[in-house]
């Protein structure tokens, strides 16, 4: 009885501290939004940064959603760009085919719903077989699926006319469209001319929604169940936790959110091709997650912002740009993760006059 009370109290404490952490995250996002928005409206902003606002939102959403899979299940997914690709293509097709004349914000909402639903569906389809695997085998299979998606979309031709949607995998001529037909997906040429519906405000709203979904899922019964399997699979299975069901839920939600990120991406550029969504993008998003701290949502956001802006910042170095980027990436990883660096930092913290006491519990 006494013990039960105690554990209930501990759970309450943990819950209130996570809640506080979550609120801080929302606060940071909103503060950043207000600062940037006021800079934009007063014109005190460079074109480069203004142009980066939406892409930063895209990568933040992608990183936070990937953290749902990597962070709570501890599994490595290398196919996240594939889901972004599905979301981007499905929604761009939809926007180009339908919805002329509707208000922009409404078209964007429709596009996000279509893109997220398509990517979520792929998440379930892929998740069912993939989640039976573990570790590096799961990683390579997600990478494989990502490449397959890219490869298949490259041979996809699609258009729409008064008779409905026409799809072919051969060529534009095989679409057999009526005279009023509009060819939208042109194989390797991709989709061009998608109206620019994405805005910074829409991006931030989507980030908030993503945060809400991911943080709630992580702290839900399902989230804790998945984490228990990450920490000790055998123990979790032995007490009858339906691991696979929960993992599939997390995987599908993560895919749908990545799809939403893809929607935001494709409605921000006039030209869309699959080249963007190769394993390098998947790896890039994974870099955000690992650098920011696995399972740490706020870290993902900060890492995504820094690493998206950094290569642009380094433009002044011209030829040495990507070289320096690589060096900084390695250095940041060593600084953040190497046990020696961590203990060195702790010693330094203690020495500081206002240094905190050595931490005892888990951090956020």
């Amino acid at each position, binding site marked *: 009885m006494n013990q039960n009370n105690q554990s209930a109290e501990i759970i309450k404490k943990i819950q209130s501290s996570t809640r506080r952490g979550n609120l801080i995250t929302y606060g940071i996002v909103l503060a950043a939004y207000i600062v940037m928005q006021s800079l934009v409206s007063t014109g005190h902003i460079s074109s480069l940064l203004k142009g980066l606002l939406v892409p930063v939102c895209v990568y933040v959403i992608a990183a936070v959603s990937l953290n749902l899979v990597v962070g709570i299940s501890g599994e490595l997914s290398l196919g996240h760009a594939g889901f972004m690709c599905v979301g981007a293509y499905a929604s761009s097709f939809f926007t180009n085919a339908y919805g002329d004349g509707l208000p922009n914000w409404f078209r964007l909402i429709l596009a996000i719903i279509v893109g997220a639903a398509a990517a979520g569906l792929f998440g379930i389809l892929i998740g069912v077989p993939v989640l039976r695997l573990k570790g590096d085998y799961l990683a390579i299979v997600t990478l494989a*699926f990502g490449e397959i998606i890219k490869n298949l979309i490259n041979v996809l031709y699609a258009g729409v006319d008064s008779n409905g949607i026409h799809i072919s995998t051969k060529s534009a001529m095989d679409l057999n469209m009526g005279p009023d037909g509009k060819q939208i997906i042109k194989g390797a040429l991709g989709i061009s001319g998608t109206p620019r519906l994405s805005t910074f405000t829409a991006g931030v709203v989507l980030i908030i929604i993503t945060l809400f979904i991911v943080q709630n899922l992580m702290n839900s019964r399902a989230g804790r169940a998945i984490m228990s399997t990450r920490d000790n699979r055998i123990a979790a299975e032995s007490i009858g936790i339906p691991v696979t069901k929960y993992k599939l839920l997390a995987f599908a939600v993560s895919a749908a959110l990545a799809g939403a990120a893809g929607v935001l991406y494709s409605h921000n550029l006039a030209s869309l091709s699959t080249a963007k969504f190769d394993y390098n993008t998947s790896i890039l998003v994974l870099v955000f997650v690992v650098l920011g701290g696995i399972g740490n949502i706020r870290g993902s956001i900060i890492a995504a912002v820094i690493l998206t802006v950094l290569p642009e910042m380094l433009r002044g170095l011209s030829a040495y740009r990507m070289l320096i980027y690589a060096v900084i990436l390695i250095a940041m990883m060593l600084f953040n993760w190497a046990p020696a660096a961590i203990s060195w930092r702790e010693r330094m913290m203690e020495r500081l006059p206002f240094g905190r006491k050595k931490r005892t519990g888990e951090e956020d």
Partner: protein
Amino acid sequence: MSFITYLKDGISLGAVYAIIALGYTMVYGIAKMLNFAHGDVIMVGAYVALMMLTKTGAPPIAAVLVSMAACTLLGITIEMVAYRPLRKASSSLAVLITAIGVSYLLQNLALLIFGAGGKTFVNVVSFPSVSLADGQLNISGTTIVTILVSVIIMVSLTLFVNKTKPGHAMLAVSEDRDAAQLMGVNVNATISLTFAIGSGLAAVAGVLLCSAYPIVSPYTGAMPGIKAFTAAVFGGIGSIPGAMLGGILLGVIEVLGKAYISTQVADAIVFGVLIVVLLVKPSGLFGKNIQEKV
């Protein structure tokens, strides 16, 4: 006849994948990390050999040896600077990301030093090609050498691991690092040795890859690296014969898929077969299915 031709093409492509996969699987099995930079070490190896051949006019064998030495050194350095500090990190993903950083670093260094344009690789293999069935089937000297070398490497690696003392140390480290340390195995030295061997093999792979497909650019290693990683997983990562078989099979599937299904979705076919295999046998063809203990 055309089927046999395609099969031969597949085997020669697969033999190159196999050599790269051997290095991958070696490092993975012992250091337990995916060395994403392995493909780029191959590229460095190819460039070093090419520079030796064209700038100094060294004989091929000397060029290959210098290239192996350079890559061995590079591999040991990368391991010491970038990977070793993270070996005890709380997540194994940390070192994976660092490896990606190293991969970017090598690619961009090569871009600065050698320029963006591809350079044609000078053929180092002076082995006669073999003509079978009245000249209908022509097997190039490079293919023969590649297959021979990959078999030699596979056999000698297997012997090395199973019969020598450092080899046993590698097995011990791969089985249980902490226990091996307690038994007096120098874990750091063993892992360094693994990287040395893996990177030396990468140099050989680079030379053979670029002899078979004679162009080298800063991004030459990236795609073969991913394919070889796939091959290593296919064969059961950590398994030396598995890497060999996985590489060959991957090459054959790729070529046959292109020949009989579609060249446009060749990659989708390769990865599709991989997925099916892994779903049927989740630890790859030769992988050990280790049950975790409580």
